[in-house]
C-alpha cells in the first residue's frame, strides 16, 4: 500500500491530498497571516508613511528648505564623515582580526573574541560615557588634552570615536564564522604554488569573503548613520558643529519644529530603505554562496 492510499483510507473524503494532513486548517492559516500583516502595517508601514507625510506637511519647498538649512547640511556632513571613518577603519580591523582569529592559533584569542563583542553587549549610552570619562575635562586624559589644546569630547573626534566603537563588531563578527568555515587550505595551496602573502590575500582570500565583507560593511554603515545614544552623550549638541542627523532630528523635535524634524528624519528613513534594498541584494548573492543566514541579522537592532 503506498502513502497516498494510506492517507485516503485514514482521512476519508479529503480526496487524498498528502500535503493537507501535514498543515493547519485553512482558517488557522489565514488568521495567522492576517494577524502578522495587520501588525506589520500598524507598527511599520503606518509610521513609515507618517514620516514622509509629516515631512511634506508644509509643502515641498519647506521640505527642501529644512534639508538645505546650514545646520542640517552640517549634520549630514558629520554623519557621512563618522560613517565613512567607521566603515574604513572597521573594514580594515574586521578583516585583520577575522583573519587572525580564523586562521591562526595564538594566546589571548578568546579574550580578543570577547572584546570584539563588547560593543554589542554594552549599552550605547555607557559606551559614550566611557569616552567622556576618558577624554572629558574631569577625565583621565582631560588635563593632558586641555594642555595640548585638543578637544575630543563635545567635538568631531569624540563623535567619530563613539561611532567607531559601537560599530566595531559588525565586519569581524560577519567574517569570523565565514573564514573559519572556509579553512585555510586554499591559502596553503596558493602559498605552495609560489604566491606571497599579499598575492594570496588579494587573489584568494578576498574573493572568497567579498560578499560577507560587503554585508558586514552595509550593517556597519547603517548603524554608524543611525547611532544615537553613544553619540548623544559625547556630542554636546552644538548646532552646526557636533550634531549628527539623528541628533539634529531630536533638536528640531524639541523645538516643536515637527515638519522640519520629519523632513530630516525622512532622509534617514530613505537611507534605511536604501540600505535594506542593498542588504537584501547582497544577502541573496551571499546566501547563494553560504546558504546560511548570517547570525548578525538577528543581532541587528531595529
Amino acid at each position, binding site marked *: 500500500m503506498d502513502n497516498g492510499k494510506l492517507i485516503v483510507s485514514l482521512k476519508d473524503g479529503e480526496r487524498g491530498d498528502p500535503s493537507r494532513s501535514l498543515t493547519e486548517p485553512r482558517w488557522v492559516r489565514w488568521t495567522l497571516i492576517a494577524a502578522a500583516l495587520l501588525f506589520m502595517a500598524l507598527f511599520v508601514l503606518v509610521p513609515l508613511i507618517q514620516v514622509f507625510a509629516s515631512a511634506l506637511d508644509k509643502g515641498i519647498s519647506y521640505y527642501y528648505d529644512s534639508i538645505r538649512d546650514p545646520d542640517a547640511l552640517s549634520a549630514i556632513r558629520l554623519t557621512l564623515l563618522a560613517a565613512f571613518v567607521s566603515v574604513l577603519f572597521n573594514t580594515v580591523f574586521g578583516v585583520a582580526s577575522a583573519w587572525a582569529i580564523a586562521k591562526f592559533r595564538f594566546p589571548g584569542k578568546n579574550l580578543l573574541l570577547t572584546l570584539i563583542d563588547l560593543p554589542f553587549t554594552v549599552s550605547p549610552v555607557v559606551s559614550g560615557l566611557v569616552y567622556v570619562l576618558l577624554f572629558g575635562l574631569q577625565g583621565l586624559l582631560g588635563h593632558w588634552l586641555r594642555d595640548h589644546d585638543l578637544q575630543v569630547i563635545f567635538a568631531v573626534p569624540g563623535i567619530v570615536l563613539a561611532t567607531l566603537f559601537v560599530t566595531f563588531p559588525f565586519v569581524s563578527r560577519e567574517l569570523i564564522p565565514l573564514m573559519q568555515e572556509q579553512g585555510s*587550505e*586554499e591559502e596553503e*595551496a*596558493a*602559498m*605552495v*604554488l*609560489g*604566491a606571497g602573502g599579499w598575492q594570496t590575500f588579494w587573489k584568494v582570500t578576498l*574573493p572568497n569573503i567579498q560578499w560577507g565583507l560587503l554585508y558586514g560593511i552595509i550593517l556597519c554603515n547603517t548603524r554608524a548613520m543611525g547611532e544615537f545614544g553613544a553619540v548623544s552623550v559625547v556630542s554636546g549638541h552644538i548646532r552646526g558643529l557636533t550634531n549628527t542627523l539623528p541628533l539634529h532630528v531630536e533638536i528640531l523635535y524639541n523645538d516643536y519644529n515637527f515638519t522640519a524634524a520629519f523632513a530630516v528624519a525622512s532622509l534617514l528613513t530613505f537611507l534605511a530603505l536604501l540600505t535594506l534594498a542593498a542588504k537584501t541584494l547582497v544577502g541573496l548573492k551571499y546566501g547563494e554562496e553560504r546558504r546560511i543566514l548570517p547570525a548578525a541579522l538577528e543581532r541587528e537592532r531595529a
Partner: protein
Amino acid sequence: MSIEVRGLCKHYNGFKAVHDVSAKLETGSLTALLGPSGSGKSTLLRMIAGLEVPDAGEIHLTGREATFASAKERNVGFVFQHYALFKHMTVFDNIAFGLRVRKQKEAGIRQRVYELLGLIQLTGYEKRYPSQLSGGQRQRVAVARALAPRPEVLLLDEPFGALDAKVREELREWILKLHEETNVTTLFVTHDQQEAMEVASRILIMNHGEIEQDGTPIEIFDKPATHFIAQFVGETNFIDTEVAEPGLAVWGPFRFSISPALAPKQKIRIYFRPNDVYVTAQLETLQVRAKIAKTRFKGTVLEYKLDIGEDKTLSAQVPKGVALASGFKEGQDVYAAITAFHVFPL
C-alpha cells in the same frame, strides 16, 4: 637524492606527531607514505612542502638544504585531499595560478595550461568552475595546477581519499600513467594499503610518528619488519604462544619450526595470512583436523572460520574456484596446514 629528510621531528604539546624520521627518495621515484590516521604521515608531507616547520632535523630537496625555506622557494607541487581548488576561478585560472604569481608571459601560460589540460584529459573544460566538475575531475585539475610550474617534487596528501571506490581506482591508473609521462619525483600519503601497493614502487610505513618499514610492496607484504606491520598490512591471523624447545613452537595441534635463536619459554606471537592456510577435504601430509564453523563470501575468495578444537579458531581463505570445486560446507570436517608465517617475540 631528490627528497631527503634527516632526523625530522615535529611535536605538538608533547605529542610526537613525527619523531626522528629519516628517508631518501630517488629522483623520479614514486613512493607511498602509508599509515593509520594520526601516524604523522600528513605532518611529514606538510613539512616537506613547507606548510609546517619542523622542530628538529633537516630537509634536502634536489641536494639543496630547504629545512626553513619558504613554500615558495621549494618548488614543490602539493595536492590536497579536498582539492583546495580556488572556487572563484575557472579551471584555466586555477591551473595558471602558479605561473601567474611567477610573473610568466601570458602566451607561455596559455600554452602550458592547454598542454596540462590535455594531460589530464579535460580539454574543453577550461571555462568551467570547480563547482561544475565531478570529484575526480576536480582532483585532476588540482594535480594539473600543482604540475603547472614544473615542480621538482610532487606531494599528494590522501589524493583520492574523498572519492568513491570506482573513481579512486581509475585515478590510481591515471596517476601511474602520469608519473610515467612526467617522471616527477612523487610522494603520496595514503591510509589505503591497496592503493599504496598498486601505485607505488616503494612504501614507507609510519606508525606513532616513526617509519616502521621502508621497502617494496612485496617486501612489506611478505617480510613484515615489526608487529605493527604484520597486523596492519593485509589480513592476518595471530596467535600467542611460547617457544617449546629450540626451533619449535606449538599451538594446539599445529607445530611451527622457528628460529633456533629464540630461547625456550620465550613468549612469541605468530602471524599468518588467511590465504596461507591450506585447506583440503582429504588428509594429505602434516595437516590438522578442523571443522568449518562459518563461511563468508568475499568476492574472489571464500573465507572460512576453522575450529580446531580446544576453543581455538583461525580464518582461512580459499580462492572461489577452488572452494566451489571442493564443495566445502559449514559444519564439514576438513584438514588444514599453515604454509607461511612470521614470528615476533613478545
